[in-house]
Every structure is written in structure tokens, then in C-alpha cells.
């Protein structure tokens, strides 16, 4: 039986409140998709400029970089691909802006084949803003297959792990890598990732080699990272686009993170409203069924 006739047959003997309850409890998912789309798009066009407060973990992330001095070196791992670019690019760009502004030198790499294109774009864009020189102020080592071997090997020798950089220049010819060759010589490791790679960095680079680590994660992975931050195994982290927005405010350079906050707020409120709607429909339906049953 076609859905419309089936629904009509089902509703034929029902009261008005029962039909309303059924409608509230079974909203077509396509309608939900359209409303969510509008809830995200409209605040991007008509910004609300909601205030953004800093969280403890974002403040710790900021402080970890702020505590470094000019000439200190960090490892920056672009551990994400284009799918999570929208959420993680703002963190990467803000972190590099913070680092370059303070004169911190960056050794960048990626553990994802798709991350190389992202890393090249972000590094060249931000380096140009602060007039930083490749090979001296920053290097991009590129992609190495097998992240576990890469993370472990870098504790022994970065040059041995990456004999050439992404542009096929021998790493022993890069001025920056003359000064640092393993974790012991690096002040801080930054990983921006959408996967569990932050955990692996903590376990291998942090647990085995004692490397200080801060992480930027998607909101869903950030929940995974909380125990490590609480236990002191992670010095700070950014959780999702909100974390990026907080960090952008701290470095006083607003970017895509801040711009996305209004849209995220409205989407969350909408989801909560849908949940409430579904529950109202559910309870009304139960009451109507009980009433019909007693009749």
C-alpha cells in the first residue's frame, strides 16, 4: 500500500490530537535536512556576533605556545584531510599565525596523503603573511606512510625518518633541520587531527619520549582527548570550531572559526528543538494510545 494511503488509513479512525502527535513524532527527515540547512546558512549571511568565552583547555593551548621564545622549534602535524578542513583549518592557521608572530620555527609534516595539499596551502599562505622563509623559519617534510613508524622514528632521528622534504630537498641540507633532529630537541609538538592520531602522538611521542604535546581536534574527537588533558599528558587542546574561535579571539585575529560560531549556535538550538518536538510528539502519542485503549 502506498505510504499516503497507508497513513490515511491509519489516521482515519484517530482523534485530532492523535494525528497531531503522530505528525510531531514522525517528521519527514527531508524537512529536517532543509531546516538544518537554513539554520546553518542564514547566520553566515546575517551574523549575530555572539560573544565567545575562552575555555580552560583552549587557554592552556594558547599558553603553551605563548610560553615559547623566538627561535624555539615546534613540530606541527597536519593530521587531517579535506573532509575536516572546514573545522580544522581555522585551528591550523591560527596556530601558525601565533607561532610565526612569536618567531617560533615550525617543522611541519602530515600523516595523511590528503593532508599534503592542505599543509602546503596553509603554510604558504600564513608564511607569506609574516614574511617567513622556507628552510630557515619553517620546513614541510611531507607525507610518510605508516604513521606509527613515523611517530616512533622521529624520536630517534627526523632526518632518518624524512631523508627528503616534500619538495625532494635532502633534509640534511635544510638550515632549520641542522638545529633539531629529534623530539628531545623540540620544545613542543602540535597535532591538528580529526582522528585518534592525537592519542597515538601522546602514547608514542609523549609516553615514550616525553615530548610536550598540544592538540587541535574536531569536536567529536575532543571528547576523547579530555582524559589526557586532565591527567596532564596533554598540555592543552582545542575542541572543534568553538575551540578554534576561542583561540582566534586570544590571538586577536578573527577567522573562519569566529565566523562559524553563529551558524553552529543556531544549528545546536535547532537540534535541541527537534529533540523536544520529537519527545512532545512521543508523549502525546502515548497518551492518545492509552486514551484510545481505555475506550
Amino acid at each position: 500500500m502506498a505510504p499516503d494511503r497507508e497513513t490515511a488509513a491509519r489516521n482515519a479512525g484517530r482523534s485530532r490530537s492523535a494525528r497531531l502527535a503522530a505528525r510531531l513524532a514522525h517528521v519527514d527527515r527531508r524537512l529536517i535536512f532543509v531546516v538544518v540547512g537554513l539554520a546553518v546558512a542564514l547566520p553566515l549571511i546575517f551574523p549575530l556576533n555572539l560573544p565567545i568565552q575562552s575555555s580552560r583547555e583552549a587557554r592552556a593551548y594558547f599558553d603553551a605556545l605563548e610560553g615559547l621564545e623566538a627561535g624555539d622549534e615546534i613540530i606541527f602535524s597536519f593530521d587531517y584531510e579535506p573532509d575536516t578542513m572546514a573545522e580544522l583549518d581555522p585551528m591550523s592557521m591560527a596556530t601558525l599565525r601565533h607561532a610565526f608572530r612569536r618567531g617560533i620555527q615550525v617543522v611541519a609534516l602530515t600523516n595523511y596523503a590528503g593532508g599534503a595539499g592542505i599543509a602546503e596551502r596553509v603554510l604558504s599562505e600564513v608564511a607569506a603573511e609574516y614574511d617567513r622563509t622556507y628552510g630557515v623559519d619553517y620546513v614541510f617534510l611531507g607525507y610518510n606512510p605508516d604513521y606509527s613508524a613515523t611517530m616512533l622514528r622521529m624520536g630517534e632521528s627526523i632526518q632518518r625518518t624524512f631523508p627528503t622534504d616534500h619538495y625532494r630537498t635532502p633534509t640534511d641540507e635544510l638550515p632549520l633541520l641542522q638545529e633539531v633532529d629529534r623530539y628531545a630537541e623540540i620544545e613542543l609538538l602540535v597535532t591538528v587531527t580529526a582522528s585518534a592520531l592525537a592519542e597515538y602522538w601522546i602514547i608514542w611521542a609523549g609516553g615514550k619520549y616525553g615530548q610536550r604535546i598540544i592538540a587541535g581536534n574536531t569536536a567529536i574527537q575532543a571528547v576523547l582527548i579530555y582524559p589526557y588533558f586532565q591527567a596532564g599528558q596533554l598540555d592543552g587542546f582545542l575542541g572543534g570550531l568553538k575551540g578554534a574561535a576561542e583561540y582566534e579571539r586570544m590571538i586577536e585575529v578573527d577567522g573562519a572559526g569566529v565566523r562559524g560560531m553563529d551558524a553552529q549556535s543556531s544549528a545546536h538550538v535547532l537540534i535541541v528543538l527537534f529533540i523536544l518536538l520529537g519527545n512532545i510528539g512521543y508523549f502525546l502519542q502515548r497518551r492518545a494510545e492509552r486514551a484510545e485503549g481505555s475506550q
Partner: protein
Amino acid sequence: MSRARLLILLMALGACLGANSLGSRAGAEAAAADDDSAAVAAASAETTPSGWIYPERWPTAIATLLFGALILGFIARARRGQELYIRRIAGLEAVDEAVGRATEMGRPILYSPGLDPMEEVATVASVNILGQVARRAGEYETRLIMPNRDPIVMTVAQEVIRESYAAVGRPDLYDANDIYYTTQSQFGYAAAVCGTMMRERPATNFFIGHFYAESLILAETGNATGAIQIAGTDSDSQLPFFITACDYTLIGEELYAGSVYLSREPLLLGALKGQDIAKAFILALLLGGTILKLFGIDIGTWLRE
């Protein structure tokens, strides 16, 4: 040239290239070492700790040995024929029902082993469960489709399924094209699996392994096709999505217990019991430490000192 020979040739070529690279690197290092061996030796002596064990890793070493001994002890008990109890796990009890449903509807089963490589424990556990699911699929003559994100997992899965079908006397059911590699890209894999679900309309979906953000896309698409879904993951950030959208979910360690539960092999059962005893010991430590802390005694600091 057959595909198998081509693969062997490529692997040999890769091994030779790797060995050559290692050899040339070793040669370069030897040359560099000849130039400043004294300086290198001095630096090395300063940074490398002496002795046979890192002092700060003693507790981990002892805990590892104890845990290993516990596992082996219970395995020995299981070998002697002692009955070991394992509680009911709803998701695993439903495997037979799920495979049977696919058989009745004349539709295939879809099995996703997660996104992690073969070296990850969740994938090993998933492939264990796959062996059991493949046996049942072979017994019921139901087609099993398995898209993979990792080529090594695909290769192992092909072997596991082939052997499972052979074990139930149906080697003719095996079709290597049903166990295929899609892409290494996370969402490319999700798109491929969703496409398979929409085209093939499997009656039963298994999502067993380590998943990331694509878990909800997979589970929701499977839900939309009306399939019965059994999920199992040790990725606690994805558990809520599977619990929401799937009929049964194996949570955390239940995934590792899966193959033990389905096969009831004594050796594996013994290892599981050893694990449980270790967990009980840790719980006792946590509880004891918390109580002591309430009385102002910090046992952690004392142990470190």
C-alpha cells in the same frame, strides 16, 4: 603474468628498493661515522642511559609480566578442560538471527571491518568475528560483501572468508570480488559503503572495528535501507552514534570478546578470563587508592618516590 605473480614481483621489488635504501643509508652513516666517530661516541655516551632497564619503566615492566602471567595461567586452566563462564552479549547472540534474516530475504550481508589497519587490535578482533560470520553465511549460502579501506585487511579477510567457506564445505561460494578494496580516504570509503548499501540493499549490516566520524553516515544509511545492524567498536566517541542507529552494539571490550564468544575456543576463553581478573585487580587498586586519598594518603606519589 597472473595477478598473484605480479603482486609477488612488486613486493620483491619493493623489498629490494627498501633494502637498497637501507644499505645506502647505512653506507652514508658509516662514512659520516668514520669522519667524526669520536664526537659521535662522546655525544652518544652522554645521552644514552646505562643498564638493562629504564628505571622509570620498572612498574610498567612488572605490570606487563604479571598481566602476561595471568593470561597464560588462565589459558593453562582452559587447556585442562576447566569450564569458564562468559556472560551473555546481546549483539553476539543476534548474529545467527541476523544472518538468517538475510538468508530468508534473499539479500546479502554487508560487513565493514572499520577503518584501521591490520596491526590495530580492533581490526584483529573484527577479522576474528568475520570468520564466525562467514561460517554462518556459508552454512546458509548467503552472499557476504565486504568493502575495505586497507589493502592488507582486504587480503587477510579474503583468506579468512575462503577458509570459513571451506570449513563448512562450501568453497564454491567464495567470490574474491565481494571482498574488495575501495580507497584509503575516510569519507571516500564511507561514500563507497553507502553506495553499496543503496545498490545491493543488504538485509544485514555488520559494522565491527574501529570507526571515526563516518560511523553515523554508515549507520544512518543502513537504517534508511531497513537493514538489521550490528555494530561493535572500541572507539568510544562513535559508540553513541552506533547505539542510536543500530539494533545491537558491542561496546569496547565486548568487541574483543566477540570471537571468543562465538567460537568458545578454550584458549581464547582463558585469555579473556585473565583479562577480567586483571581488570578486577585494577578496580581494587582504584578503589583502594581513592579511599586512601580521602584520608590524605597519596599512594601515587609514594610509589613514584
